[in-house]
């Protein structure tokens, strides 16, 4: 059903918290995502013309880089973009077949590839560009929050996390229950002031982005006087002693 489920009070809201302060834009999360999902729930994840000019394919995670601000305040920010598993996603309600759905038990937004007709309307309805068409199978594909890892009892418990989170070398990606105010991810969002993307559109993204920290203002450094600058021999001797 493409009508949204009514979440029970205290229901799980699984999602990602992405730290824009520590992300170095290495593309590790994107390639790890591609690797896992090319053979998991969403398999295959095609590449078109992979070995020639015009190579492109379906990816669930795209890492952009931006410049924000001007002058001394300006900085480069690396920005991974993937499905935000919104609380009120229009990509689900516009689906004519019921293939696109939001799970009541944990809030993950998924696509049933056996019933998707590939009309593309959900991709139009998503403001974040989270959905990409598999033009070989003729069905829409998207981030599954690695639903085939996080509940997978055949892999060690420590690895039951999305592939992108495990791959991140700077621990800029965190996975957890954002519906529980005491979870590690919720505390991180509260401490660091995590932000939703395009909140003005009203889709209530679950994923949260931690803003880059402000750099401390560097104190103006005064040039130290050299031996040549100190004329008084007593002071020159003291400077020599203290500089040892």
């Amino acid at each position, binding site marked *: 059903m493409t009508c949204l489920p009514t979440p029970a009070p205290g229901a799980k809201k699984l999602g990602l918290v992405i730290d824009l302060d520590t992300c170095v834009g290495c593309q590790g999360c994107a390639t790890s995502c591609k690797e896992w999902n090319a053979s998991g729930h969403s398999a295959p994840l095609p590449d078109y013309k992979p070995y020639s000019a015009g190579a492109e394919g379906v990816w669930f995670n795209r890492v*952009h880089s*931006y410049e924000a601000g001007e002058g001394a305040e300006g900085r480069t920010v690396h920005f991974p973009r993937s499905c935000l598993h919104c609380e009120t996603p229009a990509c689900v309600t516009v689906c004519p*077949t019921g293939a696109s759905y939001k799970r009541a038990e944990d809030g993950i937004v998924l696509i049933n590839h056996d019933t998707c*007709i*590939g009309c593309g309307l959900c991709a139009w309805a998503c403001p974040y560009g989270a959905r990409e068409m598999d033009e070989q199978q003729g069905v829409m594909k998207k981030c599954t929050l690695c639903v085939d890892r996080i509940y997978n009892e055949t892999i060690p418990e420590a690895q039951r996390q999305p592939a992108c989170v495990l791959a991140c070398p700077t621990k800029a990606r965190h996975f957890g229950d954002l519906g529980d105010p005491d979870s590690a991810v919720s505390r991180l969002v509260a401490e660091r002031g995590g932000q939703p*993307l395009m909140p003005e*559109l009203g889709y209530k993204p679950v994923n949260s982005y931690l803003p880059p920290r402000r750099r401390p203002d560097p104190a103006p450094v005064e040039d130290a006087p050299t031996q040549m600058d100190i004329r008084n021999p007593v002071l020159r001797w003291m400077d020599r002693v203290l500089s040892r």
Partner: protein
Amino acid sequence: MNPAPSIVFFTTASGAGYGLLFWLGLLRPVGLLPAVPAFALLCLAVALVLITAGLASSLLHLGNPQRAWRALSQWRSSWLSREGVAASITYVPALVFGWALWAGQPGLATLAGLLAAAGAAVTVWCTGMIYASLKPIPQWHHPLVAPGYVLLSAYSGMALLAAVSALGGVVGGPASFIVTLGIAGVILKLAYWNMIDGLRPVATAESATSLGFIGKVRPLDPPHTETNYLLREMGFRVARKHASALRKLALALAFGLPILLALLATQLGGGVALAALLLAALSALGGLLVERWLMFAEATHTVTLYYRGG
């Protein structure tokens, strides 16, 4: 947005077909059209051919057309599903209408014709709402979009009706309707274009990235060096370069020429009127193809904020 030819053709052809069905069902009982059943049957055939050709074309847009029947299930939430349901249901009174005309049952024909007209109006409204319900595309999420689909469908349907009526020797009424609806269409399109040109963006690169607190956000490195589905589907920008010329072309072909030809037909009558009204209908449909193409090409999607800034 990428103007997929299958969708541009679908909304134009089916729109005109539903418009024709609407006017046929509505105007026949009040005696504004030739009374012979053959006339109504010809109109109905033209309408159903256009509707069916358009719907078939829309199936070409799908990645898995053989599953299209599944799209009838989610009418509670999805305008696309509602459109599918309305389009399917409308076939029932339309075919009953045809049978009643064939079998000489005027009472049933009137009732079925009115029901088919209602179905046609609902279907076109649903088509418009598919676009009008998409918040990430401000040029579509606009109060004039769904009324525009309905009005242009009514207008192109009337242009077809006038051409077929001229075959039956009735010119004046339908031709004057073309003028009225055409002027309404021009006003609506001019108002719509004027409003979308001054549209405030629904979101900014700053709100899309949450980095606005630092300052202006500019894309530095793209996430991929080649194109992708998002850029091909949502990042289409060829037509915006020629938008003003195409708008003039759309206005001239869709409304200007048909209005002039309709006025000419009311003055001259006879064979000239028939030729003029046939040409008017073709011109209107051609112009609406340009208008529908622009409707897509001029629409921008918030995902481009991530790639191009804003």
